[in-house]
């Protein structure tokens, strides 16, 4: 399946869920599938999207928090996967686009292209609802399940190496303000905040 199709399947299921998108391909695809203020696009700090999602899930326990990651970024922060599994926020949904390459830097192969198995690794790290899909029907069902059941969930979308050059705004501070304003407009913040 094309990666843009996989991201559209996520996008059409979202209402008030914030999404943290890893830099490069995941962020560009999420923007391409339809911009919204609750999309937090990262422009650097590769590997950190899942850690940002963990902190956000702890701060916003009454709604689902989605991380849109790439397989290269997930491999770069495997330690963070163990941390997510241990802290186990039930409202975190982590979707990994697995194309087996570093797409933005020229398509260099990474470990998932041959031997590394993200599903087995995520299960071993303690994540829940862990599964992969290589077609839209299966992926849609996995996303429905992950968005409804207690997590932390991890869904691997096996996708082709299609890219997007649809760039989100290159203004980090504006992205932050827009995201935080929409979070507070649509929610109640941390349940124990004054």
């Amino acid at each position, binding site marked *: 399946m094309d990666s843009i199709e996989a991201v559209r399947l996520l996008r059409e299921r979202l209402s008030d869920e914030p999404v943290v998108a890893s830099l490069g391909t995941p962020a560009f695809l999420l923007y391409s599938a339809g911009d919204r203020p609750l999309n937090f696009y990262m422009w650097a700090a590769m590997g950190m999207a899942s850690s940002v999602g*963990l902190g956000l899930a702890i*701060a916003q326990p009454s709604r689902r*928090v989605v991380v849109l990651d790439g397989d290269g970024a997930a491999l770069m922060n495997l330690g963070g996967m163990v*941390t997510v599994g241990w802290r186990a926020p039930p409202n975190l949904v982590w979707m990994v686009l697995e194309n087996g390459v570093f797409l933005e830097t020229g398509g260099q192969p990474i470990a998932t292209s041959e031997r590394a198995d993200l599903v087995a690794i995520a299960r071993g790290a303690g994540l829940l609802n862990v599964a992969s899909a290589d077609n839209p029907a299966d992926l849609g069902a996995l996303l429905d399940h992950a968005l409804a059941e207690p997590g932390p969930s991890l869904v691997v979308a096996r996708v082709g190496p299609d890219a997007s050059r649809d760039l989100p705004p290159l203004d980090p*501070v504006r992205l932050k303000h827009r995201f935080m304003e929409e979070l507070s407009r649509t929610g109640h913040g*941390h349940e124990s905040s004054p």
Partner: protein
Amino acid sequence: MASPNADGIPQTSWWEIVYESLKAHEVRLVAHVPDQVLAPLVREIEADPFFEVVRLTREEEGVGVLSGGYLGGLRGALLMQSSGLGNCFNALGGLPLAYQIPFLIVISQRGRLGEFNPSQVPMGRATPRLLEAIGIETVSLERQAELAEQVDQAARTCFATSGPVALIISTLLSGGKRG
């Protein structure tokens, strides 16, 4: 919790002052990697339901966790040894500095006064200059008498100006790690 010092004057330990200041500034999310000097502070925090605690695998994750927490409405602090600071720099540049996301960074100093382990020296000695190089306001906590005021002002600066502030716990204050 205050215990008398040699002159019989009640003295509060450095970590009790930091703990109280974190609470006073509504810093509720704490991410940490274990350290011997920070251990009593972490014990107190983990025993207090006021705090949400994340035990990290590696220090860099904490930069992400606290950035996400702040976006969601929680103020945070990252607790680690100076050796772990080196693991954080790309994330510090790409998240809190680029996006102007504040949190406190509490660093237990290794590699300087009182150090017993030569392998801790290069990173420990470079710690303040590395923080300065990337543009993070840094305060060295050395004397008990100024501690409460320093931590309070650091927290106010951090959250009012939307940038991380580092507090280095000097071995002069903590006694350091004994070999």
